[in-house]
């Protein structure tokens, strides 16, 4: 086979043909776009959305009837109420009443938890806390959760151990959870926060977004993305559905260390959503990520997400700040795995559906 003639035919189909390439073309001919004209009279998406809107309206009406009896607008000046109930029905399985404790004493059902109180569960048990009209928090794996404050304007909790899963529908920044290493500020979402050990805590955002703060830095974490929190602050964010090697590399990145191998794996295994990790790398100083590494990172990002034009491509490869800022705007929608359809967002919020990639990651971790 003449490699040069294959390359030329691959580049220009009007060149002398290469039998190898022609064989592939013949095999794929059935998939070619048919000759067509654009139909201005039909919008398939509107027809589909109409059906979803009718279904969503019916479902929303039914749920509002049920929810409206338990959650109602209270404009009094009393603090938000944190209530632990449904003891025995945590995230997974059930737990005996004596396995949940309030300030060290066994908890009764429907107990109101006030500021300064600690709720704890034994390893293997779980409990659900209802945070006023803001959402639910589930604790498990030997968790210890303190209620720091429940002012009318905010609810602040502290996770001292174990794992918590939050489902919050409050306005942004009303609900926050601190650990010894930092704070997760809710921006309207569903997420899991986990104390792995004294020096490593983990956040996984399933829906919405969380601002992860620590060591004088704050990092927004979108849906379908996780991050580790250490004494140095938030680590590199990573897609929850990324390869195990990619996630390990993101966790292993340390400013000041030799990150050559880490950067190689991140570039190699990144997909479009993984550009959130690569972009965050670029925000580090030149000491942490030297120029030569930045250019390699940018080149990989452009392979995954082509620039809007060749002029933009050139400016981005030159690390032009304005071009990179525009490029970020282009990439950002790819970072969240949140459903685009309002109907599907509604289902996720009510725990009916989760992204398969997130479930796969959570199952793998277990």
């Amino acid at each position: 086979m003449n490699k040069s003639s294959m390359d030329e035919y691959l580049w220009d189909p009007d060149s002398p043909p290469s039998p190898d390439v022609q064989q592939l073309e013949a095999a794929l001919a059935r998939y070619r776009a048919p000759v067509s004209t654009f139909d201005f009279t039909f919008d398939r998406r509107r027809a589909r959305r109409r059906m979803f809107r009718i279904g969503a309206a019916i479902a929303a009406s039914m749920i509002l009837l049920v929810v409206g009896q338990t959650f109602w607008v209270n404009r009094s000046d009393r603090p938000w109420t944190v209530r632990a109930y449904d003891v025995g029905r945590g995230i997974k399985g059930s737990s005996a009443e004596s396995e949940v404790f309030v300030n060290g004493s066994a908890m009764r059902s429907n107990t109101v938890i006030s500021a300064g109180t600690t709720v704890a569960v034994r390893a293997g048990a779980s409990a659900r806390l209802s945070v006023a009209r803001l959402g639910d928090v589930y604790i498990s794996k030997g968790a210890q959760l303190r209620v720091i404050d429940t002012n009318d304007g905010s609810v602040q909790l502290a996770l001292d151990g174990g794992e918590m899963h939050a489902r919050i529908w409050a306005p942004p920044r009303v609900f926050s959870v601190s650990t010894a290493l930092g704070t997760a500020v809710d921006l309207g979402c569903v997420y899991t926060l986990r104390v792995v050990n004294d020096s490593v805590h983990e956040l996984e955002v399933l829906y919405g977004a969380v601002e992860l703060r620590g060591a004088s830095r704050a990092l927004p974490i979108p849906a379908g993305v996780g991050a580790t929190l250490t004494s140095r602050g938030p680590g590199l964010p990573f897609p929850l559905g990324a390869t195990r090697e990619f996630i390990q590399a993101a966790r292993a990145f340390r400013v000041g260390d030799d990150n050559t191998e880490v950067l190689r794996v991140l570039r190699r295994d990144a997909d479009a959503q993984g550009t959130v990790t690569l972009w965050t790398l670029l925000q580090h100083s030149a000491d942490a990520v030297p120029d030569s590494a930045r250019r390699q990172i940018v080149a990989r990002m452009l392979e995954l997400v082509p620039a809007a034009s060749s002029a933009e491509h050139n400016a981005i490869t030159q690390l032009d700040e304005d071009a990179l800022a525009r490029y970020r705007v282009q990439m950002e929608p790819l970072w969240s795995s949140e459903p685009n359809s309002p109907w599907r967002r509604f289902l996720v919020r009510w725990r009916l559906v989760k992204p398969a990639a997130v479930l796969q990651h959570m199952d793998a971790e277990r």
Partner: protein
Amino acid sequence: MAALNELPERDIASQREVVSLVRRASTGDRAAFGELYQQHVRMVHGILLANSDEDDVRDLVHDVFVSALEKLHTLKEPAAFGSWVATIARNTARMERRNRLKLVPLDESIPAAAPATLDGPQVLAAIRSLPDAYRETLLLRLVEDMSGAEIAERTGLALGSVRVNLHRGMAILRERLRGAR
């Protein structure tokens, strides 16, 4: 392989035509938008074929251009119409995958048992298992019969990038097809 400086330059006249068509289409000129459709439908079809279930591609092509028509007034750089509608196509494919109740990532493996001669579904599966950049470029060439220069012009990619994608993508594809036999 030809040196990069021997490659033909981008067709400036064709870019000016796209700018003119976009501006006319933005004012409601259906003939102009129809022409944009004709010029870019193969690219959109190829990108969707690379990123979606093949049974959905035809409907998704229509969705992409309806979306482009609705948002055309937001396109600040008319000359970038090609890369802009390519991004819409990729986003549409991504949202369609997420909107399915069972979300399954694109199959990264090729069939263990392969026929002796090249089989369409087998070749398509092999191409779809390639990294994103190679996958799309190869499908645009091998399925949609677009030249390298045309791929670069429509998608906004640099000529050199397209040539590298075709060359490397073909090398990996040949290895995978050889390994499957």
